[in-house]
């Protein structure tokens, strides 16, 4: 057991007081008054109320905030596309101008991809990955908070363009000569390029953090092939993010330099190649597709076994298929460019790889079906969303295989058939999976169930509305209706199906209103004591997060879990009897940890949010005036130094009662590196590496 008092960084803390003296002062109740001054600010110690959320480094609070932000942007992105659907209600629509239409569909795509589905996946990953691998927190809690706040400011920055001259109007993939100053002279594309850059930095920080957490902080016995599938898929996604994000970073830098500093990267007169942007964007963009869908695959790989009362069929195969998708996802990007004239060899090669990647995806779908087969299926709300993912994603996957056939794709490209395809995989796939996860883990995160009846209404209206909206787009797409056109003609024959699609949009809107009502109503009822608590293990779960109380206590696990199997917690509840028949030996609620320990935890910090504030300032500076960027840079560098000099865990808060774990819930977190860990790695963890990583991200 580490004796935290002899940590070197506490003895030598930069406030200059001698080693030893301050350690004695730190009685359990004495913090607050004598909080150490490290850098500019006194350290937040016992933050309560809104401060508790603003300065937290707790992975669970950060996860919840990611989720709340994502739902907010989901509302914005959904309302944006509502105007588009109204415009397309009738031929020659006159609801909005063509220019505004361009901005709406662009910002809808950008918002839904970067501000909704990615952070929703991040919400689940942040909340659940440490729980599923039996860890106390992520590897670098402050860096985790930094990622959240950079994402927060990045999203606001991106959407401020609406009030500062109009949103981006070049489509979500922003093909470059078209998004240069000549054809897109407003500031919208500047906000797009810089906003995505900022969001990308946030994603990169989060990805590195989660990757290190999963690789390095698994509890004893948790070998890679005992990890829950959700954690596995998150691991694959973090690899994809780490290697895909720098490519879009470069693309956006080139675009920004073109627009801001008159560089020539996409200047066709100077000899530029328009395919450069397309290649760079899609080398990022196609892995991005798997970044969006794999977390949802992970979610349903958790829910389907639980609600079928069977282990996941072919666990190693599902895991390896996920990893295979991650690898093969790097070799298919140019199928987005079949009509760009890149030559028959490239087209044939990418056509073949695209067909191949359907194989591991299909394997997963078969495994899910086999999991449900002959199981005792309980049709709870999360189960219904999960099953609908399997069905809807299959439809989207099949139209995807159609696109792999280059001659067919040549006909379908830039029509509503493509729009139908990717909405089936992203809404029917990713979003359905995220909803399944919401209903499934809501009791774990908040301690009560979302209302079941409202949940069913939400599900059925969503499923119906979704199919009514996007099903007809297959038809009008094959009839030749081009996407991104703000009007269609009276005699084109598209009117009927467009009316149907718009009706479907409003069905989905109602479904979302029901979801909102469900969230707020159930929350209110729970606070008034009208909702029963969920208990630690409401679904008879299989993974470690169900072995601790709901809502999860701040320190996660009382004791380090030691696992010896896949679905280890389930094996604690069911054992074969003498005849070999599985019998229940315990109930999850009875054998869950109690949550009565009070170990040291990482201290909250001001620096993540202060550092993150520098990012949008630099963005504004690049658009309007470089002096603002200078201020942002100063803020950034200054807070990096403040961060570096601040120990990850407050050395003054509650020392010296480490052994029996009865500290006063402030201090030290149990990351992966401690005074007496075998490699002799000291504490003060995260300080340097985090700051260097940030320094880099800022430099990029």
């Amino acid at each position, binding site marked *: 057991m580490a004796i935290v008092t002899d940590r070197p960084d506490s003895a030598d803390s930069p406030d200059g007081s001698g080693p030893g003296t301050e350690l004695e002062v730190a009685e359990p109740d004495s913090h607050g008054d004598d909080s150490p001054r490290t850098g500019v600010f006194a350290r937040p110690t016992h933050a309560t109320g809104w401060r508790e959320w603003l300065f937290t480094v707790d992975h669970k609070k950060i996860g919840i905030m990611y989720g709340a932000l994502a739902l907010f942007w989901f509302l914005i992105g959904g309302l944006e596309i509502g105007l588009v659907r109204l415009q397309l209600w009738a031929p020659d629509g006159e609801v909005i101008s063509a220019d505004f239409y361009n901005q709406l569909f662009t910002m809808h795509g950008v918002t839904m991809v970067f501000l909704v589905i990615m952070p929703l996946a991040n919400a689940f990953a942040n909340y659940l990955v440490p729980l599923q691998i039996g860890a106390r927190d992520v590897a670098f809690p402050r860096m985790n908070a930094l990622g959240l706040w950079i994402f927060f400011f990045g999203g606001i920055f991106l959407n401020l363009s609406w009030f500062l001259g109009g949103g981006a109007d070049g489509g979500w993939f922003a093909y470059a000569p078209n998004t240069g100053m000549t054809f897109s002279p407003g500031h919208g594309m500047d906000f797009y390029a810089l906003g995505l850059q900022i969001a990308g930095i946030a994603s990169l920080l989060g990805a590195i953090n989660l990757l*290190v957490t999963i690789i390095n*902080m698994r*509890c004893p016995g948790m070998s890679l092939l005992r990890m829950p599938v959700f954690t596995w898929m998150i691991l694959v996604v973090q690899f994809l993010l*780490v290697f895909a994000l720098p490519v879009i970073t470069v693309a956006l*830098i080139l675009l920004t330099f073109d627009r801001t500093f008159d560089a*020539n990267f996409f200047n066709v*007169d100077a*000899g530029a190649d328009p395919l450069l942007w397309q290649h760079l964007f899609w080398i990022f963009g196609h892995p991005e597709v798997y970044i969006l869908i794999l977390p949802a695959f992970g979610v349903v790989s958790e829910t389907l076994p639980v609600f079928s009362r069977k282990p996941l069929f072919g666990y190693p195969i599902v895991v390896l298929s996920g990893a295979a998708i991650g690898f093969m996802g790097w070799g298919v990007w140019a199928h987005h460019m079949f009509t760009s004239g890149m030559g028959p060899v490239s087209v044939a090669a990418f056509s073949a790889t695209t067909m191949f990647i359907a194989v591991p995806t299909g394997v997963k779908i078969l495994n899910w079906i086999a999991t449900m087969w002959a199981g005792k299926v309980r049709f709870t709300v999360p189960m219904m969303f999960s099953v609908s993912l399997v069905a809807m994603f299959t439809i989207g996957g099949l139209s995807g295989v159609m696109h792999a056939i280059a001659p067919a794709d040549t006909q379908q490209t830039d029509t509503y058939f493509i729009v139908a395809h990717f909405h089936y995989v992203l809404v029917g796939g990713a979003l359905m999976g995220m909803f399944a996860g919401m209903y499934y883990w809501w009791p774990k995160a908040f301690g009560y169930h979302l209302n079941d009846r409202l949940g069913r209404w939400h599900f059925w209206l969503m499923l119906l509305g979704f199919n009514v909206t996007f099903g007809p787009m297959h038809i009008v797409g094959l009839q030749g209706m081009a996407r991104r056109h703000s009007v269609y003609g009276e005699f084109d024959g598209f009117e009927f199906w467009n009316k149907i699609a718009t009706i479907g949009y409003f069905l989905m809107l109602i479904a979302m209103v029901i979801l909102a009502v469900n969230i707020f109503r159930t929350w209110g009822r729970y606070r008034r004591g009208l909702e029963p608590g969920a208990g630690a293990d409401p679904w008879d779960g299989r993974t470690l997060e169900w072995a601790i109380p709901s809502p999860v206590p701040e320190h996660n696990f009382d004791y380090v879990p030691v696992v010896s199997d896949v679905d280890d917690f389930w094996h604690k509840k069911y054992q074969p009897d003498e005849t070999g028949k599985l019998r229940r030996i315990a109930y999850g609620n009875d054998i869950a940890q109690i949550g009565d320990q009070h170990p040291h935890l990482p201290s909250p910090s001001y620096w993540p949010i202060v550092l993150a504030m520098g990012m949008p300032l630099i963005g504004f500076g690049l658009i309007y005036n470089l002096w603002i960027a200078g201020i942002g840079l100063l803020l950034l560098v200054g807070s990096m130094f403040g961060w570096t000099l601040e120990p990850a865990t407050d050395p003054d808060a509650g020392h010296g009662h480490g052994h029996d774990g009865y500290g006063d819930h402030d201090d030290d977190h149990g990351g992966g590196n401690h005074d007496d*860990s075998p490699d002799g790695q000291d504490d003060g963890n995260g300080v340097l590496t985090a700051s260097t990583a940030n320094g880099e991200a800022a430099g990029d």
Partner: protein
Amino acid sequence: MTDTPTTGSTAAAVEPAEGDEPQIAYPRTEWDDYEIIPPTTSLSNEKLTMWTFLGSDCLLFGALISTYLLLRNRQPLSGEGSLKAADLFDIPFTSVSSFVLLMSSLTMVLAVSAIARGEMERCKLWLLTTAAQGAVFIAGQVYEFTSFYREGLGFTVSISSSAFYTLTGFHGVHVSLGIIMLVTLWAMINRGIIGPERAETVEIIGLYWHFVDIVWIVIFAVVYLIP
């Protein structure tokens, strides 16, 4: 949806047989507390983070170098040909500054080795030497950029110049950040914030520094030496 799970036929309900209160599934074990769990791999979290980041940075430079290779010989569609970066290279000069940068990797290794042996003064000396060599390289780059600019190769002059300045500029930014980190390390050791027990911190910054050097070998070979 019920609070207590219902039982299926595969698992007939049997109350836990003996004992009054059920055992918790994950009691205190010999692992005792999170304080003593080592990292799952033999790498510390910090070092693994740096390796991951460097892997990511490879793709950043990969994309920038590919962009330069694609664009370096492009000419305007009409009119006379524009000035290219390759027309102005001063190979002997850049070779010298490259040599200085590569030698800084040696002093970086010496700094890491010094702190591993606990020789703090020596470590500080080598850190400053490394930073100084990096600064010489940056000075060389500033001189190079200025002289190219004087010879008419502005950032916006041609597509090749945009690509050249962006690629080498990004490398320069990386070196500069490295210098800032080295000097910060020096200051932190000087004030006793970092002692011999945190030798790994120096090693991790060393990883970054070697990476930046290796990237320069690639850039120097691909951009300057291969015509």
